[in-house]
Structures are given as structure tokens and as C-alpha cells.
């Protein structure tokens, strides 16, 4: 079942933690709203990877329901929906002020 895949859960968790950490770093440092949302996607993918890894390596908890796998599928769907709405908003921002740098959206302050 796991032919060709590592059987070490820790490796997967480490990879997902790296995804999540890079995602957070991207969100905090990017000067471009589209890049920023790519960081959010990275964070979500870290979570999805966690779910798949935990479900695969912890059999016997919920085999028949496959909650972890199903959750990761929903994460993918919701990430797509969120990206669609976010990009629509970014387009409006660009039309309004010819820049999509969130740091320069400064009309609301105080």
C-alpha cells in the first residue's frame, strides 16, 4: 500500500511543518497581495498533508469513515473558493488604486 513511500510519519509531519512555517513567513513578508494568498495556500496545504499522513499512519481510528482524507479534500475545495473570492477583491483593489500592496492601503487608520 505504501510502496515507494517513506513509512516514517515524522518525515511527513516535518514537511508539513515546513510548509506551514514558510506559509506564515510568506504572509508576513510579501508586499504583493497575490503572493500573500499563495502563502495562505501553503499553510492550508501543510494542514492537508497532516491530515493525510495521520490518517494513513494511524489505522484503526476511523478507517471506515476516512475522516482525515475527507477533511483534506474539503481543504482543497475551500482553498479554491477562498482564492477565487480573494482574487476578485484584489482586482477591485487594483482597479481602485493601481497597486495591490497591502501596506499601502492606508485609508483606514487609527
Amino acid at each position: 500500500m505504501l510502496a515507494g513511500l517513506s513509512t516514517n510519519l515524522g518525515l511527513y509531519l516535518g514537511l508539513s511543518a515546513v510548509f506551514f512555517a514558510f506559509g506564515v513567513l510568506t504572509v508576513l513578508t510579501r508586499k504583493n497581495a497575490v503572493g500573500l494568498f499563495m502563502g495562505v495556500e501553503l499553510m492550508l496545504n501543510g494542514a492537508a498533508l497532516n491530515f493525510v499522513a495521520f490518517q494513513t499512519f494511524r489505522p484503526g481510528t476511523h478507517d471506515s469513515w476516512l475522516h482525515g482524507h475527507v477533511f483534506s479534500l474539503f481543504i482543497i475545495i475551500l482553498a479554491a473558493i477562498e482564492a477565487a473570492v480573494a482574487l476578485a477583491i484584489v482586482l477591485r483593489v487594483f482597479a481602485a488604486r493601481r497597486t495591490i500592496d497591502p501596506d499601502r492601503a492606508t485609508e483606514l487608520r487609527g
Partner: protein
Amino acid sequence: MRSLFYVSPPLLLSFFSVFVLIAGLWIRNHAFLVGTSLLGLGGTAGLYLSMIGKPAQDAFAGMLIFDHFGLFFSVFSVLVIALGVIVSARSREIKEDRRSEYYSILLALCTGLIFMGISNHLLMAYLAVETVSILSYTLAGFNRERNVSVEASMKYVVYGSMASAIMVYGISLLFGVTGELEMTGLREFFAKTPADQLPHLTWIAVLLIFAGMGYKISAAPMHMWTPDVYEGAPTPVSAMFSVAPKAAGFALLVRFLVTAFTQPIEGSMEALATGIPVSQASFNLVGNFNWPLFLMASSGLTMFMGNLAALSQVSIKRILAYSSIAHAGYMLMGISTQSTAGIYAILFYVMVYCFMNIGAFWIASKVDDVMGGDHLKHFRGLVSRKPFYAISMAVFLFSLVGIPPFAGFMGKLYLFRAVIGREMYFFGLIAAINSVISLYYYMKIVKAMFFDAPEVEMPAGKTAFDSRLTMTFIALLVIPNIMFGLFTDPLMALISEAARIFTGS
């Protein structure tokens, strides 16, 4: 089929949501759209009221749970959205050619709020939170000709998507530790696993999930988006944002903490048997984790962040936004007491908070419409121009401060009593200090309305904003603010029925 019966109200609401959207393509009549939306909300509320008294029941294989707690928050969400529809109907901020989309989104939002209150599974909770969030992003930017509105929606989507990503990562870790996603399943897991054998990863996971839910209720430090979004979004939308998602977030948070992590000590079940009133039962959140300190710190920080930042504001919408952060802090007090009395107090506070806050935002919206702005200077001398609005606003503000005999006072009283009942005197003192700080900025508005001379000229051509109907509805919001301050028993009876999940029945 049995499960379908329990989701029939949200199904009806989704049907109306789609219907309003499609019918709006042909029928441009505004009254028709408002009427249909209210009809859908009314029908939903009616279906819920017919479900009162049914025993607690899970549905869809444990994804959802139906109990009086969920029912309370479902009806509450319908009420808030109905108020939102009424407030929006007379607002100038919603453009005419987008009204059908607007009401359609509002009804869909209500569906999401309902599911937040009744989810018993973390996947369902995540889906409901995302439904509410994504619709909120679009609502915040609904007035897309105004730059501030677009900016508000961008800030909302940046913070919101990050918060939900953090939450879902926390859920994945919790799933890894426990192998469970169902809240009742989590409770069984924690009951059979000794506290000192839980890995520290559990508490990292809980912190991450708390951060995600804390964003919905705008608890510090996840509150930064709140003032910008409330100021930029159309005012009727801000009025709803400040109440509905916050209440649903509290419903989810309380259900998550109490269902998954609670071990009753002077337990509610035994309390019933031994005759201790259930309202005095307390519970312990499990684990090798300092829950009381964590919850108190989060609550205290939220109060101070909201109240101190509100002091220097001049925009009324911004003041109300910061005050809504502070109120989230007060409500968190109820959870940190870890007692049934605290939960009762939260439910009571949510209910009265709805009436006072929507009212205050509504008046702000009216003043914005007629004076061309919502700054303190636009409120100066309001009593000589629009006495009805000034007096109603004063009632809402007094209620927000918590001055007797208004409802806000009783809300705070219940919260403080829960805190004192658990002998957390220092924490009570912090909350009292915060109430005093908040007095300053609320009274600043009252002083401007009643004792200052008018500063801004009323722009010409902006009349006919106070129809009889609007004034009637505002009066309908004023009445509960006074009534619930004087007669709390009916509402408390309702709430003690709603909070029965904590007695195990």
C-alpha cells in the same frame, strides 16, 4: 430522513437565498425583495420554534447536533439577520442594482451562522466558519465604489484566510493526537487518557484552534482587522458583523471547550441529584494546561485592547468597533469562570448586546446618511435636530456602558456574579476598571449629542430619512434595552433551558 428534518430550517433558508437571487433578475421591486427575505427568515424561525422541546439528538452520523443550545443560537442568528435586512432596507449605502445579490448573501450568511451553532464535528465547524467568512469578505466590500469599502474587504480577507488556515492546522494536529474529529469523541478520548500522558502538541493544537475562533469573536491578539473592517464596510453590514458572527463564534467556542474538554467536578449530573441548583455547577477543563490563566489573560487583554484604543477615536463607527472588541472580552469572562453561571451569563449578554449594538450602529448609519459623516462632530447638537435619534442613541450607549436600569447592566451583573462566585476577585477588579474606562468614550458621544452646539451644517437635499416605519423599528430596539434591564426572568428561563447541554440531558 430523520436528519433531514433537523436541517429543514437551513434548507428553507438556502432555498430563499437562491430564490431571491434569481427572482431579482426580473423583479426589481425593493419591497418585494425585502419581503421575500423576511418571509424566508420568518419561516425558518417558525420551523425552529416548532422544534422546541425535542430531546437532544445528533444527525448525519454525528456531524451535527440538535439541542436547545444550538436552537437558541439558530433563532438568534435568524433574528440578527432579520434586523440586518430591516436596517439595510432603508440605507443609502446599498446600491439599487445590487440589492437582490445583497439579500441573497445575507440569507446564505444566516445558513452558515446556524451551522456554526449546531456543528458537533470539527470538519463541519471549519466548513461553517469558512461559509460565514467568505460571505463576510464580499459583504464588507459590497460598496465597491468607495475605496474604503474595498480596502476593508481586502484587510478582512487577508486576516481571515490566515486565521482559518491557522485553525485548520490546529485541527489537523488535534486529529493526529486524538484520532478524533467529533467533539463528543474528543471528550471520550480525554476522559480515558490521563492528563499527564497527553503530549504538549495537544495544547499547541488547542492554541491554534483558539486563535482561529478568536478571530471570529475578535479576541486579542486576533482583533486587528475589526476596526478597519467595521469602519470601511457599509454600516448595516458592520452592525451585523459586530453581533452575528461574534455570537456564532461564541457558540462554537463554548461548545468546543465544554463538549470536548470538560470533566464535570461538582458535576452537573450530581448537582441535579443532590439538589444544588444547576446554575451553580462548575466544570474543569481537562489537561496539563493552565486553562484558567490562559482564558483570563485572553479575556483581560481583549478588554484592555478594545477600551484603551477606543479612547482616542473620533469616528463613531470606529468607537463602536473597538467597543465590540471590549465586549468580546467581557463575554470571554463567562468562559474563564468555567461555571454554568458563566455560560448563562454569556447567553444573556449576547442577547442584550444584539439589541444595544445594532441600535447604536443603526443610529450611526442614519446620522451618516443625513449629515454626510459619522464623526463626533456630526453628532454635536443632534438633540436639537433629531431628538428621537439622540434619545435612542443615549439609551443604546447607556446600555453598552452598563448603567442601570438598562439591559446592559443586567448582562454585566450576571457576568460579574459568575466571576465573584468563583472567587476570582482580582479578575473582577480588572473587568470593573475596564467598565469605568469605557464610560469615558461612550459619555463623550452622549455629551456631544446633548450639550454641544451643532458644528456641521446639515447638507441640503438629504431629507426624508426618518419615515414612521424606521422610527417604529428603532423604538422596537429601544424597548428590549429597557425591558430586559427590568424583567430578566423570562429571558433567564429561556437561557437555562438553552444551556441544558451542560447538565447532560
